[in-house]
């Protein structure tokens, strides 16, 4: 039996090693508790996509004429062979198959990870990579998370592989050294960058994910019970509560208190955790989602009225459902009824259909629609009425119905791959058109780099429903965890003026974690849960000692097995004990009542001694004990005993 059971280790396997612009926090934690190793999320860092040159869907004169970067130390002949890096407005982009970054793999032996718990559809895109590092654990996610995460994986896979893109050998040390320093700075640790997985990898990875419900108690090896709690962020998103017989650990990540489409965040169960891991707060702390949505609509209306088109680079799931819902009401009210809205993604149909079959995972207003019966999301009706059209890509049927001005939702928000690339190319030259960024995960200016010079208007209205610092601070006050574990970036730095809107201000002990941190947290709990057999229970008779409080002495044989500690009866139970205080005066009075009056009360060093004259006996009152001494009359001794017992409780 290991005493580790009282400890929680946290090993963190992710970013941000360096912070570039709005680099988001990408969670991947490994905790070890009660002998079970649990990985919490395994996000995929797509931020490096920005270092790559866009993958056009059709030949683009402009893109292909972007000059290559001159490498130092290379002859012009070698240069042309190594036409890898293109330079635009001082930035260097790699013209090769884009790569992504996976969590830190050297810190933890992935084959030792027993369980992976997933928070939302965006937070497990590294799953297909885990197997090559020996991971063979169980994976749990809510059913919508599983299905929608799959769509995200498949979309990106399609974006990156639908046209063959040469994978060039740019990671060669000699080549990297010949790059200007400003470029190399952003290309760190490049040998750990990975090419994106293929369709088969997705299928096999998804097949091991076990779909679960909110509030479903998962038994992890008999020692930890994990429960998914709604986090209010997106369809099926959850926080995790991990309970051992002795303690309670919460993992709160990407949670929202806004009223959007998902089930509201469940907080009650997270109250007074022994340890709380708080992660993935909003990536746009200064932007209020409602204000941003308003701005988005205004700019969209202006653009459309001016005869321009609107591109909204987005993911195929998440906020896009809310956008689609608001958009139509807005267009109607703005008198832009006929404007077509296109959603273009290889998984558009899947994502839109899936959203409407998970009513039980939605907010109450949406949930109640199915009782009509109506679709929870109005986009089903928009599709039926032809106001919203979705296409897997720009090649096929889109051409037959395409009308401008229009609104297009398309991926990828990095503008490095996907159909959005095409619209940037086609619409970029006209100042009538607008591109409106809503995903805060990418630096939008950097995203626009390859399209410069750009005439199209660009707006950044980040909509990230996750909690900001102000809300998170309020939440911490409410939840009152014993210990807080959170990214160092969220904690106040010494230099910073401390405001509760710019950082967390925990009132409880806390640990800041960075990529590669290992934290040891002692989980001291006052009680351990054990079970008393009914045989033992039937032998005890508790007595009331105070109003509402019953007590009895209890001895038993405790058998300790992992996760199941049972108390059985002993063949010979231990004797009862006495509790309370005795008092000399009360004894004297009792004796007098009994006709024994020949008594002297001595006080020596705070000790009362009752002498029963005639040398018959003495009773010594000490702190915690009473002694009947030298009583030669057995009847009197029993009487004294009886009188003293009446002052005490026997349990």
């Amino acid at each position, binding site marked *: *039996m290991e005493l580790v059971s009282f400890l929680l280790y946290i090993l963190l396997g992710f970013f941000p090693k360096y912070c570039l612009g709005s680099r988001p926090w990408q969670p991947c934690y490994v905790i070890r508790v009660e002998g079970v190793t649990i990985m919490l999320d395994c996000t995929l860092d797509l931020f490096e996509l920005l270092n790559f040159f866009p993958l056009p869907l059709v030949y683009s004169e402009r893109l292909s004429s972007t000059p290559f970067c001159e490498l130092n130390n290379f002859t012009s002949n070698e240069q042309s062979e190594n036409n890898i890096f293109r330079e635009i407005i001082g930035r260097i982009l790699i013209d090769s198959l884009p790569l992504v970054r996976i969590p830190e793999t050297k810190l933890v032996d992935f084959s030792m990870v027993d369980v992976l718990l997933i928070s939302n559809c965006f937070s497990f895109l590294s799953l297909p990579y885990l197997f090559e590092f020996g991971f063979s654990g169980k994976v749990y996610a809510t059913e919508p998370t599983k299905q929608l995460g799959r769509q995200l994986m498949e979309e990106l896979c399609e974006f990156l592989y639908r046209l063959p893109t040469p994978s060039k050998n740019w990671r060669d040390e000699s080549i990297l050294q010949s790059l200007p320093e400003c470029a190399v700075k952003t290309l760190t640790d490049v040998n750990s960058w990975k090419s994106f997985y293929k369709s088969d990898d997705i299928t096999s990875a998804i097949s091991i994910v076990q779909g*679960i*419900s909110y509030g479903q108690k998962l038994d992890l090896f008999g020692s930890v019970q994990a429960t998914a709690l709604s986090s209010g962020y997106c369809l099926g998103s959850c926080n995790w509560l991990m309970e051992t017989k*002795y303690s309670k650990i919460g993992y709160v990540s990407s949670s929202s208190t806004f009223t959007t489409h998902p089930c509201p965040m469940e907080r009650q169960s997270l109250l007074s955790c022994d340890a709380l891991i708080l992660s993935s707060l909003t990536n746009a702390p200064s932007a209020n989602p409602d204000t941003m949505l308003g701005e988005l609509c205004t700019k969209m209306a202006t653009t459309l009225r001016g005869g321009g088109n609107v591109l909204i680079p987005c993911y195929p799931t998440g906020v896009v459902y809310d956008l689609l819902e608001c958009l139509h009401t807005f267009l109607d009210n703005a008198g832009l009824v006929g404007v077509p809205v296109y959603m273009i993604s290889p998984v558009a149909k899947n994502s839109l*259909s*899936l959203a409407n*079959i998970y*009513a*039980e995972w939605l907010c109450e207003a949406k*949930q109640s629609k*199915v*009782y009509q*019966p109506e*679709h*929870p999301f109005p986009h089903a009706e928009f599709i039926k009425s032809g106001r919203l059209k979705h296409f897997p890509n720009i090649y096929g049927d889109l051409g037959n119905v395409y009308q401008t001005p229009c609104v297009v939702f398309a991926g990828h928000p990095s503008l490095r791959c996907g159909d959005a690339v095409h619209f940037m190319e086609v619409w970029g030259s006209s100042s009538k058109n607008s591109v409106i960024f809503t995903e805060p995960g990418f630096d939008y200016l950097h995203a626009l780099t390859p399209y410069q010079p750009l005439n199209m208007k660009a707006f950044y209205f980040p909509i990230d429903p996750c909690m900001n610092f102000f809300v998170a601070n309020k939440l911490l006050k409410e939840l009152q965890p014993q210990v807080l574990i959170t990214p160092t970036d969220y904690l106040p730095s010494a230099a910073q003026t401390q405001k509760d809107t710019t950082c967390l201000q925990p009132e409880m002990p806390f640990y800041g974690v960075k990529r590669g941190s290992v934290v040891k947290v002692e989980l001291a709990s006052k009680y*351990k*849960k*054990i*079970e*008393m057999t*009914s*045989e033992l*229970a039937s032998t005890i008779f*508790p007595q009331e*000692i105070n109003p*509402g*409080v*019953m*007590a*009895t*002495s*209890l*001895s*038993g*044989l*405790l*058998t*300790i097995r992992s996760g199941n500690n*049972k*108390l059985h009866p*002993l063949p010979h139970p*231990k004797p009862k*004990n*006495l*509790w*309370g*205080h005795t008092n000399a005066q009360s004894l004297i009075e009792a004796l007098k009542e009994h006709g024994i009056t020949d008594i002297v009360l001595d006080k020596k060093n705070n000790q009362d001694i009752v002498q029963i004259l005639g040398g018959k006996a003495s009773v010594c009152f000490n702190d*915690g*004990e*009473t*002694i*009947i*001494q*030298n009583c030669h009359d*057995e009847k009197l*001794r029993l009487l004294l*005993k009886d009188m003293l*017992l009446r002052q*005490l*409780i026997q349990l």
Partner: protein
Amino acid sequence: MSDIRIVPLGAGQDVGRSCILVSMGGKNIMFDCGMHMGYNDERRFPDFTYITDTGQTLHDYINCVILSHFHLDHCGALPYFTEMCGYNGPIYMTHPTKAICPVLLEDFRRVCVDKKGEQNFFTSQMIKDCMRKVITVNLHQCVKVDDQLEIKAYYAGHVLGAAMFHVRVGHQSVVYTGDYNMTPDRHLGSAWIDRCRPDLLITESTYATTIRDSKRCRERDFLKKLHECLERDGKVLIPVFALGRAQELCILLESYWERMNLKYPIYFSTGLTEKANHYYKLFISWTNQKIKNTFIHRNMFDFKHIKAFDRSYIDQPGPMIVFATPGMLHAGLSLQIFKKWAEDEKNMLIMPGYCVPGTIGHKVLSGTKKIEIDKKLVNIRLSVQYMSFSAHADAKGIMQLIQLAEPKNVLLVHGEAAKMEFLRQKINEEFGIHCYMPANGETVAIATTPSISVNMSSLLFKRALEESIGAPPSKRLCSLPNSAVVDGLLVMKNEVIEVSLLTHKEVSDEIGLTRHKLKFSQTLTLDGHFLPDSNILELLTTSINKLVPDSKVLQTKEGYGLELSGTSVTLSIAQFLPQPLVNLTWELQDDHIGSILVMNLVRTIPRALIMT
């Protein structure tokens, strides 16, 4: 308190008005609240006076109502119970049940009130008000009704949204199956439950004695008969309920028509069709894996060959298939069509589900050839086929479920007494567990041996843990591996909810109670003079052994003292000369030994050795 008590108010040795009351751990749970289709009198609803006769109101008595699925024999009395009898406590069901149940209730209400003109029936508004009180549960979600009562739903497969419920109060638990199906069908998956080892499994037993032939054969058989009838220009009537079996049969016919390229018209009685199918589309996540996987590309519930029925088609010549509600031919359109078609032997009636006694469906199935319908005698000439499509578990399925859940007891409901008896014996023989089959109103009490959850002080636990691993075997109080003797004080606050086992120190901190010892001390003078070399300790030991048999007397380490092993009794020599003085002490728990020694020790010291 440790008994689980069960009373069926309905569905006890019967099918219809399912309503089972379970009491355990001070909680009362009502499973299902159905109506009996076979009756028009007060027997239609469960007998709630059983509860109100206790003098308590319904919501004081019942902690929660749990509904297994949307069939009327399981939910039909709910608006009556909540709106007319006044229950206003919590009601739990799955999302699809909540969605579909009011549709069927309304449909039934219309048949009864509008067509038959019944009085004193619940209104449309009552159905709405009632459904508003429903709390929905997801599969496998643990829902806490209150601090002690927890429920969890499992997939039952019977109809869309059908669930089995595991209910737990403390360490006692009961599984109620509702209706379930252990074999996957065309649109639903099979029922599943984990090894939750409840104290009691309450299972339906509709097909207690049937072992159905393979599903595929039954389907082929069904299609063949259907096809033959149509070829000989006959009309086929299939009475169904709007939701459930109807959708499965539609999928079956749709694919057969497609494959055989048939053109015979298939009609579905109007009203509910489109809406009903829409429910299936919205709750696709409750259907089987195949439908879930393909719904994005082709939704199985978009039927191409099945069209809406119009009343005028009844008298149209030529072959056709009509699905009409309700399913037991007790009222409505299906009965109307039946009346018209019954006397033509070319036609066919396919009854795809169970019919409760008292309905025309039941009469037809039991072979009655002349039936009075609306005061008119109808000769039944059409061929009648009973296709057992009703997705209930058969005997094999019930045994499978018992195997899965591993209950300690089984109780049968929702079946016929004679068939139950057969199954009861089988369960008893095969699993060696008790099986009960109470009639309505009959109480069954099941004794359980619950263990009690205790919060043990970490300090005490750590001590025990250290003892179980750390202490050398000789020092250990207990020789069993991974175990330790624990001694503490059990404290219960606020009844029995908070039971904690504390160290003595913690007790004084927590509730201000301190340990106290009552000790006795007696100086014994041994008369006479002993020889300087006589061993007084040995003499005392001999005497003590005589006076207190079984005692083990040990010499204390410091010398000149004795202790009785395992007791608090000690003796020390205070003085040897001139008269030996022995100081005898003991604590309360050893008072019987102390008393014996005080009175007898001096006397029994061998006199011969005492010099006077």
